[in-house]
């Protein structure tokens, strides 16, 4: 119920479920909810055809999964939307969370992921793939899942150092993953499909790079920023490269339509530091009408783009292993805070933001322990900032109270901006 309340701002705009071709035919896909529901319709059809759902974390590059026609890769960050768009039996997963005591200290997103996977398992075959480089909460969710559904979870050791031994270790792990998938699906990897997959992987990388450049090129309405658009892109990319290209085009058009020249005009330029995924969802409508967002979060260290398509499965495995060490990872805890802070400073100075909005979920312990240095940084720079605990699954009452704080903050920032311009 709380989840439904929290997502109501977005879900009110959700169109009816798709009829016809969900990827090609509707203008409704220009909204986040439209594309998501199209995506889930694709997933529903694929599962209806007997394919195995493979839930994977973003640290695991998906191209290797395309070698197995029997599996359908689904990014675990999309799982919170399952209940809303697919109409999963809402209580199913939660009733199956018999090990509630073990899940109480997980973050809300991971609890929701667990509930969704357990719901899906009632009717479908589900596999899960994660890495040991994720946060403890994500690992704990996979451990709980592993205890509930034996032999359905594969964890990859993915060290960060980009040197030879690290790559060898990752490569060994990817081979183990290939064996795991072959054993689970009862089919060997299909090389011709691999080749096709590589093309899709290249398209995905290129699209993400484009998006990253676009997103950092200027200010634009809140719901067009990368974090908001990411699920859409991931969904589209998981369907077809054409879907991804279309999503990019939509984004480009919307940015061109809404971008403001320079830093003039009545709009506030708010540096947006979303420290945990989806934490700004509840305030999207409010922010979209009042501010232009500039993402200052240092989350995209670089996206590798392969120069040529591999000619064998071995090359694909090697590419995946290398990619796993460099893939942009929102939960990259090994990234030193010093590096993050330096990038935040650089972004703030480049974009000349009026204020910074930090949103985070209270249960994310890693964020909580790094809040103080980030606050200190903003104080030393003299930038007004608002620290907002924004659990996307909070009740409406909580969301309203936080919205009041946010409105007061925006009003204050607007007053400062007026004084600055008039002075």
């Amino acid at each position, binding site marked *: 119920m709380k989840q439904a309340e929290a997502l109501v701002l977005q879900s009110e705009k959700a169109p009816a479920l798709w009829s016809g071709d969900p990827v090609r035919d509707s203008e409704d896909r220009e909204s986040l909810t439209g594309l998501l529901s199209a995506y889930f319709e694709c997933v529903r059809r694929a599962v209806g055809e007997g394919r195995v759902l493979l839930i994977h974390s973003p640290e695991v590059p998906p191209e290797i999964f395309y070698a197995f026609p029997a599996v359908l890769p689904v990014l675990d960050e999309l799982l919170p939307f399952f209940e809303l768009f697919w109409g999963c039996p809402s209580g199913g997963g939660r009733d199956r969370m018999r090990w509630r*005591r073990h899940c109480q200290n997980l973050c809300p997103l991971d609890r929701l992921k667990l509930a969704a996977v357990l719901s899906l398992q009632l009717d479908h075959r589900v596999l899960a793939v994660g890495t040991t480089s994720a946060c403890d909460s994500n690992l704990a969710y996979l*451990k709980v899942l592993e205890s509930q559904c034996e032999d359905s979870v594969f964890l990859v*050791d993915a*060290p960060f150092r980009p040197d030879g031994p690290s790559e060898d*270790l990752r490569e060994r792990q990817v081979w183990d993953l290939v064996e795991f998938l072959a054993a689970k699906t009862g089919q060997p990897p299909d090389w011709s499909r691999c080749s096709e997959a590589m093309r899709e992987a290249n398209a995905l990388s290129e699209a993400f790079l484009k998006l990253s450049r676009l997103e950092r090129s200027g200010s634009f309405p809140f719901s067009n920023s990368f974090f908001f658009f990411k699920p859409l892109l991931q969904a589209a990319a998981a369907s077809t490269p054409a879907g991804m290209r279309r999503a990019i085009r939509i984004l480009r058009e919307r940015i061109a339509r809404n971008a403001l020249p320079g830093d003039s005009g009545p709009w506030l330029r708010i540096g947006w530091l979303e420290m945990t995924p989806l934490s700004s969802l509840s305030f999207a409508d409010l922010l979209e009408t009042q501010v232009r967002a500039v993402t200052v979060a240092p989350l995209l260290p670089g996206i590798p783009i392969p120069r040529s398509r591999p000619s064998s499965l071995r090359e694909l495995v090697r590419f995946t292993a290398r990619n796993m060490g460099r893939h942009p990872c929102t939960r990259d805890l090994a990234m030193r805070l010093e590096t993050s802070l330096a990038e935040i400073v650089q972004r703030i100075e480049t974009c000349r933001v009026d204020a910074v909005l930090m949103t985070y979920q209270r249960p994310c312990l890693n964020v909580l322990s*790094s809040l103080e*240095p980030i606050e200190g940084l903003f104080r030393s720079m003299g930038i007004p900032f608002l620290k907002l605990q924004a659990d996307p699954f909070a009740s409406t009452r909580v969301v309203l109270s936080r919205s009041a704080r946010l409105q007061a903050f925006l009003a204050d920032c607007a007053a400062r901006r007026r004084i600055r311009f008039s002075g």
Partner: protein
Amino acid sequence: MSKEARGGASCSPFRPHREKWGEELTGSAEQGSVRLGYCCSQVPVEIILAAGFKPVRLPLSSSPEAPTRTSLRMGGPCCMRLRRLIESVKSGGRTALYGLVMTNGCDAMLRFHSLWGIKLSAPCTPFFNHLMQIPFRCRGEVAVRFYHRELLYLKECLESHFAIEITDADLRAAIRKTNRIRRSLRDLRARAREASSRQTGGSSPYQGTKRILVVGPEGPEKTLLMSALRDSYGDVFFDPLGCTEYPSIDCLAETPGETPLEWIARHYVLNPGYCPKAANEAPKNASFARWMGPDPPPCGILLLTDPRCRLWRAEAINWEKWTSSQRIPLLWINGKVQRERVLRAGRWLDRLLERKA
């Protein structure tokens, strides 16, 4: 009971022996040699020893300092372990450390590594802050090569930071020293088993079937609770995971044609210590099974976890599944030591040991 006494009390009958061996390992306290902290059973103490440092396992169970504002604000939200780690490192005087070697075993260690130098000041400069990456699930030659590379990197960092040279001879000497400790641990275990078979009782950790296995991460809460329970129930508690400063009691093998660093890498990868991040079925974990050995199963298991530690809380599922399949009673205490929890543990132990409160 004073705080110091409670903090100093041991929950493991191995503790006195460990302290003795610790002295042998690190030299006597009077020597005042420089100390280097480490906080994971996968950190090779041999390299720290070979560099001429005294290895100190952190976080210390009883930190001499009161909780500071910094440790509460930064460590508190994450877990007690991180808070105690910050306090242990920041405490000066006799316990001053020259550095800390950590692994990516949990978020607390990664966060500490990340926060270092931004909000935390070092007790002595230049402070050596090193993060190792560990192969958790993969065991084999490729993991050995990876870990060997990490060891080389650690050695190079130690050499450049402290302007020292760590030779193969130093490493061999350190390996011989730690092997002596492992042999002693194995002897103790054999003697304890003999004592158990003779039913002599006393301070043996194997008093027939009346022994309680204690499981959970080391920390102040565990120390407090166990000292309270030991006051009433004596040495019925057996805590093998508390002895995992050395991942196994098997001696480190010297393989001809390989360097000492390669021996160390092979040993630590193939004989992993207990780690909730790596383990998927705790009681079947190789290191744990080696400690349990062929002894009769315990009559009960006491599982003590930090409510904020996500990995241990998830790991508790495996313990629950295993104990229910083995029909071993399990009491899981998840949280701070409070009067009612101690009483609950007491009632459970009374029932189990068939004695009156």
